[in-house]
């Protein structure tokens, strides 16, 4: 038996992003003009969501720690920016040049993803983290020391100026694409294979799963989307500076994934949005001498969130006041007329039970001791 609305629940974040994109799209196309700082914020948020969702494929679902995500983005930003700088004089400053540079940036990052995926087959945990960290730094310094004619060197790569009115719409369409691909992959037999590798690699091998193939798949796909984010970045900013893509940025993306809950796509989307918003707001509020406080406050807020989510002392508080409990309360106050009254006789089809199987691969946390409902 299927709880009504369970399907909607798992596509809620998708519908939400799609709805916002559609509304803003219609407004833009009918001539509404948004403040350029708002547009820039929206672009930044879209880039962060793409980065966080793509990284969660490797960190949350495959269970490998990668500290080089900004490196893949860097490759995408430079390659995409370069290709668009070459193409814009030929094709004009339209969607054609954008799509070609998008493909170039994603492709180049994907190739790097394969390159990092191969050592990932032999290294585990901390060792892999070090390799990916080194990869990010190498990429950064390669572009920094490139000749001014090729990739701009230390001054950064200048990218052509674009009509910024529509960029955020493209950005959000790409967010939808990323979420769709990652989510559909995870909720399929291939996603089951990837989560099986995370849960127990030896058991996965003993079930005949081609671990090599799936690790490479996850790394390559994740890198390709980081490349997409990079191309968006190069379009959103007028110069691409390699210094922007240091390990600090990789860790910032990792924080988005961890904070959203490992293996939760809606969580990654939410935390990417909040962190990006918080970051920009702090930068805007704290000016002058107070600017030094920005990182401090940012860190303090992150620590507070992590403590709130994990401290055993706060468990009682969390169990009492959270979204799940609130939803339960609301549901109880509006009883379902079709609910089975005879709990003792039909205990396994009581509709308040959570449909665990549907939940899998979307929300790893908090499913600990709930019992399952029936299969769809």
């Amino acid at each position, binding site marked *: 038996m299927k709880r009504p609305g369970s399907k909607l629940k798992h596509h809620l974040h998708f519908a939400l992003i799609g709805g916002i994109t559609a509304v803003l799209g219609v407004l833009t196309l009918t001539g509404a003009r948004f403040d350029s700082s708002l547009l820039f914020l929206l672009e930044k948020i879209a880039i962060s969501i793409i980065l966080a969702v793509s990284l969660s494929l490797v960190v949350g679902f495959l269970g490998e720690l990668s500290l080089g995500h900004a490196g893949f983005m860097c490759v995408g930003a430079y390659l995409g920016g370069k290709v668009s700088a070459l193409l814009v004089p030929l094709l004009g400053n339209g969607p054609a040049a954008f799509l070609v540079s998008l493909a170039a940036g994603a492709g180049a990052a994907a190739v790097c993803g394969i390159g990092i995926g191969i050592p990932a087959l032999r290294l585990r945990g901390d060792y892999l983290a070090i390799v990916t960290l080194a990869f990010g730094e190498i990429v950064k310094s390669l572009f920094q020391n490139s000749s001014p004619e090729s990739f701009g060197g230390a001054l950064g790569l200048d990218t052509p100026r674009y009509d910024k009115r529509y960029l955020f719409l493209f950005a959000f369409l790409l967010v939808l694409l990323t979420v769709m691909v990652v989510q559909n992959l995870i909720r399929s037999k291939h996603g089951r294979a990837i989560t099986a590798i995370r849960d127990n690699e030896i058991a996965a*091998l003993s079930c005949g799963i081609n671990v090599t193939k799936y690790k490479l798949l996850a790394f390559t796909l994740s890198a390709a989307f980081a490349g997409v984010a990079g191309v968006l970045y190069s379009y959103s900013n007028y110069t691409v500076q390699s210094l922007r893509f240091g390990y600090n940025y990789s860790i910032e993306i990792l924080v988005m994934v961890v904070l959203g809950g490992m293996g939760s796509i809606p969580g990654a989307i939410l935390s990417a949005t909040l962190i990006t918003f918080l970051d920009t707001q702090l930068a805007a509020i704290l000016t002058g001498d107070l600017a030094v406080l920005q990182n401090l406050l940012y860190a303090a807020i992150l620590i507070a969130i992590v403590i709130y989510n994990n401290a055993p002392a706060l468990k009682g508080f969390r169990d009492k006041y959270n979204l799940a409990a609130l939803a339960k309360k609301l549901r109880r106050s509006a009883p379902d007329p079709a609910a089975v009254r005879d709990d003792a006789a039909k205990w396994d089809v009581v509709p308040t039970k959570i449909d665990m199987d549907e939940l899998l691969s979307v929300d790893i946390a908090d499913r600990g001791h709930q019992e399952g409902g029936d299969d769809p």
Partner: protein
Amino acid sequence: MSGYILETKKLGISFGGLTAAQDVDLRIPKEGIYGLIGPNGAGKTTIFNLLTGVYQPTTGQVLLDGQDLTGLGPDKICRLGLARTFQNIRLFNNMTVVRNVMVGLQNRPEYACSVIESVLRLPRHRRVEGQMRQRAKDLLRIFGLEEDRNALACSLPYGKQRKLEIARALATDPKVLLLDEPAAGMNPHETEDLANTIRQIRDDFGMTILLIEHDMRFVADLCDQVTVLNFGTILAQGSTQTVLQDPAVIKAYIGG
């Protein structure tokens, strides 16, 4: 063809100076239940790890249905038809029971579906997912786990976890099923129940089962033939009754 479905020739492995298995000539005929017994540290699990490619043998060969498995990886060996369970249970703990079994079904040719088809949600993806779920449910029914199919694997009681691991191995459609101490930690009632399930698997699937077990009553009750290992070599091989009464075997177990 030698007439044996699973056969090893002079199989051996040494870790540095320690020879954990040496000159093991295992011969397992088709269809039936076979035991691999021996005192602690005799090398039983090592043999399983050699058979399934978790360890690579230093010497010798493994043949499954005449096909040489030596040097292949564990995933390849599983796809060729040798599935196993583990002494210390290895389930996918963060997955539901039914999904654990579905992972086992992954490589069956009838459930083939490419990544592109899954990502684009093409009709084949939907059909394959439905069929896999149904097949997994059918397998769980054999083990009496159907009611638990939406529980997390780690939330199951110990005995059911052992059964789930067998169900998952069976889902890979093996020619030979290797069970590493399936009855460990079970009470007499659960053990009895498990023995019946293993017999049922043999009869329903025409399966060849090789199991490691310390519970001698369980072995005597279930196995047609046994192989006794001691210090990494075969001490005796033959029908269960004869081997269990062999003075050399009794001496190896009791010591002296």
